[in-house]
Structure formats: C-alpha cells, structure tokens
C-alpha cells in the first residue's frame, strides 16, 4: 500500500480517474515532472525525501519496446541502466571496450519458471506421471539453453538463499530411464510406431500453453518438447497472447499444462497459490492443488510471527510439493542489470542493486548530463 495525497485526491469521487494518474504526487525520493506517453517519464530529485535528497538530480525512464534496441541505445549512450538478457550478458558485453564503460551485476532474481499440470486432467491426476515428466525434463539443458547458464534449478516455490527455502527436498535429476519406468508403472507401456507411448488406444499427447512474445518461455517449451519426446510423450506447444491466455485459458481452467512463472514475494506466505480454497475460476491456484496437510501448514504459517514455527511449516510444505509435483519446478534465473561506469555508490546485495538508489552519485569529472537549474 502506498501513501496517497489526500489533500489532492479528496475532490475526486473516483480516484482511478483523477488527473493524478498521469501526474502522480507521492512520498518517494523523486518528484514527477513529465510523462510523454510511449516515450519517457521524467523525475527530479525531491529535496523533502526523508532519507535526504538523492544525489542524482534527474531520472528519465525511457520506453523502448525491445531488448535489442535498448541494448544498442545503451552502447550509444542513450541509456545508462538496463536489464540484460542472458545472451547480451554473456556474448555482447565481454569486450574490453564495454567493460571500460559499464559495470555488470548479477544476483538471484525473485521469481521462478515452472511447468504446471491441470491436476484434474485424467493423465496428470497420476502422481507417477508428473514425477516421470519431472525426471524427463533436463533442467540443466534448460538453464544452459534458455539462460546460458545464468540461473539455478528450482526445487520449490522459494528463492534459494532465503530463510524459507528448504534445500533438502526430493530432487528430480534428468533421468529418462527412470521417467520411462514410472510411466510404465502408470500404465504407459506400449509404444506406437512413431515412438509415442500408448494406453487404452490413446497416444500420450497433450498441449502445453504459454504466453506469446516471451522468448525465454518459447525456448523452454521447445527444449521440454524434445525432452518429453525422448521418453515417448508428444507435447504440442501453443503460444497465446497474454490477455487471451489469462482470460480464456487460465481463468477458465481450459488447459492441459502451462509454462508460467511466479514472482517470489519477500514474505513466504503463498496461501493464494497452494490452498485448496483458492481453486475457483480466476483464483491463483489454477492447477487445482488440494492437499489437507498443505492447507493446514499454510494456515499455521500465516497464523504466527514466530520465525522458527513458520520455517518448520514452510519447510514441510516444500517437502510435500516436491513429492507431489503439481508443478515441475524448472529454474530461478539471475537478474542481470548493467550500469554505466560513471555511477558510483552501487553496493550489490541479494536484494539487488537499486535498493540504495538515493545514494548513487556521479563524480564531478565524469558528469555527462547536467540539469539546468
């Protein structure tokens, strides 16, 4: 929740329609100056900020619709800070020239990507099938292929390195043999002429949905497709534009499986995602996970401030999730910001680098742009 300026908003009956939406007034370190739609937003340092006026006098956020152009802008000086994609980080920023002018940073991002199963699907109802797919998925190939190695395997819905993360849950190493064995146990023993498993006359074929325009997800899907083909499962890929994706497929639970991601919030309570009461249409437990133990543990975790008690509950939840595999947890990427070298005062931490933005400064000799007083 943010603090809102009552004295400016109280005259509007519907604050979502007030002019402050285009000219916000707040309590942050920077003051809004202008917004040229589709082009840029400009902020000037606020002398009234409680931590003291920021050193950097003006911040301009530019709207550049794609990563490639953004990167070209970075190199030609039109942009000072941006988030790099893995290929840019690995391949395009290693020259001596680049390193003279820019500083790269790397820290674990607060999010993970997963393959979610609709648990009411007749085949995915079977735990062994889900576990088989987990073994079939080559997570290292995913990290190397999609993230160029800049990430780590996800074993659950928590960020590695944080207090709630349980490093000792059941893992699913890439093991096509084990995958086939599990599938056979679940009744998928016959193989058709095309190499795809059959049971009761049906081919093991399903469609995975993911949102269009996301290169990382498209690549993830392509790699998983190959992984699953190896064990006899035919996975078709369908990309849907975001709004239709959420509206027509996720919210209405019209999918076999999805490739999606979650942001990991600082507080480990994930009630909305895992509790059985949250499986209604449009609610966030879209796979339909319902486990009485997890329900109870989620309630426990929310119900106390005692860190130790909470930790126990969340650790146990992760054990159950690892066993049940309602998702195949795929990977946690690294966040890759890059900043022009003239900015000083940056102190990388697990929380990132911009948490102390108000303390960043540029030594006088290196200043490029001056704000006219």
């Amino acid at each position: 929740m943010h603090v809102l300026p009552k004295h400016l908003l109280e005259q509007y009956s519907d604050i979502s329609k007030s002019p402050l939406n285009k000219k916000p007034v707040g309590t942050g370190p920077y003051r809004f100056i202008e917004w040229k739609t589709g082009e840029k937003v400009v902020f000037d340092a606020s002398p009234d900020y409680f931590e003291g006026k920021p050193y950097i006098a003006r911040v301009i956020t530019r709207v550049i619709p794609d990563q490639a152009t953004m990167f070209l802008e970075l190199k030609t000086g039109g942009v000072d800070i941006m988030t790099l994609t893995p290929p840019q980080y690995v391949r395009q920023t290693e020259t001596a020239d680049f390193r003279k002018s820019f500083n790269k940073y790397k820290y674990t991002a607060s999010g993970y990507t997963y393959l979610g199963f609709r648990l009411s699907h007749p085949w995915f109802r079977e735990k062994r099938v889900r576990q088989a797919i987990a073994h079939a998925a080559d997570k290292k190939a995913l990290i190397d292929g999609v993230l160029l190695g800049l990430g780590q395997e996800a074993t659950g819905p928590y960020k590695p390195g944080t207090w709630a993360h349980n490093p000792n849950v059941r893992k699913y190493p890439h093991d096509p043999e084990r995958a086939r064995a599990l599938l056979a146990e679940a009744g998928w023993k016959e193989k058709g002429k095309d190499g795809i498993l059959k049971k009761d006359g049906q081919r093991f074929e399903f469609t995975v949905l993911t949102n269009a325009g996301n290169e990382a997800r498209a690549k993830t899907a392509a790699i998983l497709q190959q992984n699953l083909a190896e064990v006899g499962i035919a996975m078709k890929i369908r990309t849907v534009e975001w709004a239709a994706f959420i509206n027509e497929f996720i919210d209405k639970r019209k999918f076999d499986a999805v490739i999606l991601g979650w942001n990991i919030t600082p507080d480990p309570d994930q009630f909305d995602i895992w509790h059985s009461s949250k499986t209604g249409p449009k609610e966030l437990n879209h796979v339909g996970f319902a486990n009485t133990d997890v329900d109870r543990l989620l309630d426990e975790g929310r119900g106390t401030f005692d860190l130790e008690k909470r930790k126990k509950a969340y650790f146990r939840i992760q054990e159950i999730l690892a066993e049940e595999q309602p998702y195949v947890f795929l990977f946690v990427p690294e966040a890759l910001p890059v900043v022009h070298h003239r900015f000083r005062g940056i102190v990388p931490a697990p929380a990132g680098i911009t948490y102390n933005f108000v303390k960043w400064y540029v030594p006088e000799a290196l200043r490029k742009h001056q704000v006219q007083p």
Partner: protein
Amino acid sequence: MLRYISRRLLLTIPLLVGISLVSFLMMHMAPGGPIGAGTDLNPKATAESRARLKAYYGLDRPLHVQYGRWLGRMATLDFGDSFSPDGRPVVEKIRERIPITLTINVLSMGLIFLVAIPVGVYSAVRKGSLFDRISTVAVFTGFAIPTFWLALLMMILFGVKLGWLPISGISSLDHESLGTLGKIADRGRHLVLPVLLAGFGGLAGMSRYTRSNMLEVIRQDYVATARAKGLPERTVVFRHAMRNALLPVITILGLSVPDLLGGSVIFETIFAIPGMGQLFYQGVMSRDYPLIMGILTIGAFLTLLGNLLADVGYALADPRIRQG
C-alpha cells in the same frame, strides 16, 4: 471541375458507411465481445461490474441499435477508452501519435518525388543505357526486398558500425537543452533512417511508373512535332514530355497512403518511434480492441482522403475533366 469534385465527394459517403459497417462487424467478432478482454484481465472485475459495462456500451441492446450508436460515435471519433492500463480515450492516444507518423510519411513522399522521378525520367530518356539497366535492377530488387530486413541491416551499418545516425526514438536525451537549430538537426538525424526506409518501396514503384509513362509520352506525336520544329532536346524533354508524364504523380502519391501507413507499423516498431504505427502494433499485441478499431478506422479515413486527393490530381491532369 467543381462538378467532378462534388460528385466525388458524394461518392465518399457510401464508402464511409461501408467502413463503419465493416468495423462494426469486426468488433463483434472478437472473442469475449467488445469488452471481454478489458474486464477479464482484471481479477477484481465482478459479474456486476461486467454487467454494468455491458449496459454502458449498450451491448444488451439489439444489433441495429448498437450499430446506430457506433455510427454516431464514429462520426465524432469516439472510440471509447483504451484497454491498456492507462485507460485513456482512444482518440486522445491516436491524436498525440498521428503527427509524427504523418511527418515521416509526408517526408518520404517528398523523397520519392525528388528521387524517383528524375531516375525514372532519365531511364526513359536514356533507355537501354547502363544507367537504365542498373536502375531497373535496383527497382526490381526494391520490389522484392523485405523492408524490415533492410531496416535491420541499415540499423547495424549506420547505427552501430558507423555510428553516424541514431537508431531509435525521435530525439536524443538532451534534446531539450539544444538550441532551436540544434533541435531541428537532432530531430532530422533521428528521422533519416525511418524516412529512407519508409520511402524505399514507393521509390521503386514510382520510378518504374515514371519511366513507363515517359516512354509512352516520348512516342507521342506532339513530341515528334516539337523535335521536328527544331527545338533543343532538353526543351522537348522538360517542357513537353515531362509535364504530361508528371501529371499523374499526385494520383500515385495519394494512392500510396495505405501502403505507407501499413509500412509505418513495421518501421516505427523497429526504430522505436512513438507514432501511430507503433501504437497499433502494441494494441494488436495486447488485444486492445478499442484502440485497434480506432486506428483501423482512422487509417481508412486517411486512405479515403488520399484517394480523394488522387482523383483531384487526376482531374487536374486530364483537361477533359478540367473543362467539364
């Protein structure tokens, strides 16, 4: 002449009605209907708020009533509010983007005019020469090359390797602090690549057309007469032949409006230019239906205008119509 123009204008009316019909039908083809995407994205939208929206947009009324309302709203350019998070009126978003798109397209039309015509004329006058042959090859290549590919290659060459031209946006970061002349120069530099590429396709077509037109005209009797009168070749070419060959030029330029608009989607997206084309692309990607319909309709209006101009140009050129 006046009669011709007024007759032409009258013909525009059924076209406008037709445009409204087609767009109306398209809107109702969208999955989820005209308001579907807007409310379903928002998890807080309840059944009642969606019912309210339905009533507001009149979607619970019979189809012909809805069409009537649409017709009225189209006349006032009221396309509703955009589905994007800023929820601003569509016409406002278009209005702030149109100037830059029009600027680039007008400039590229100018480029076409200035380059294609001399090339076409010279090719015709020196038919079969090396120049003619080279320009023919260039023209055919121009027809066949995917312009977005060319855009990428130019960006790399001029933007990155040579660093001569900026490769995105329409002004530099410190644009505000430049003097007036500096500002013009800055804008100019940013527009070079987009204008060049926007005009590229039209260049090929126009020079080809000019060439064949010139060839036709040169063969005419009055040219032979002028030559027989002993007039210098240059006068023959410029005064007699060219004037007649050039008259249809306005027609061509007017007719090229829809292609230029279509092309602007690609260029503005590649070069990150905040014009109507980029807005359209973003609207398509985010299924912002009111925005899509708004730009489509405005695009149709502009095309209609271009056609009108083309016909007027044609009328000016053809003395039979001019007199009548």
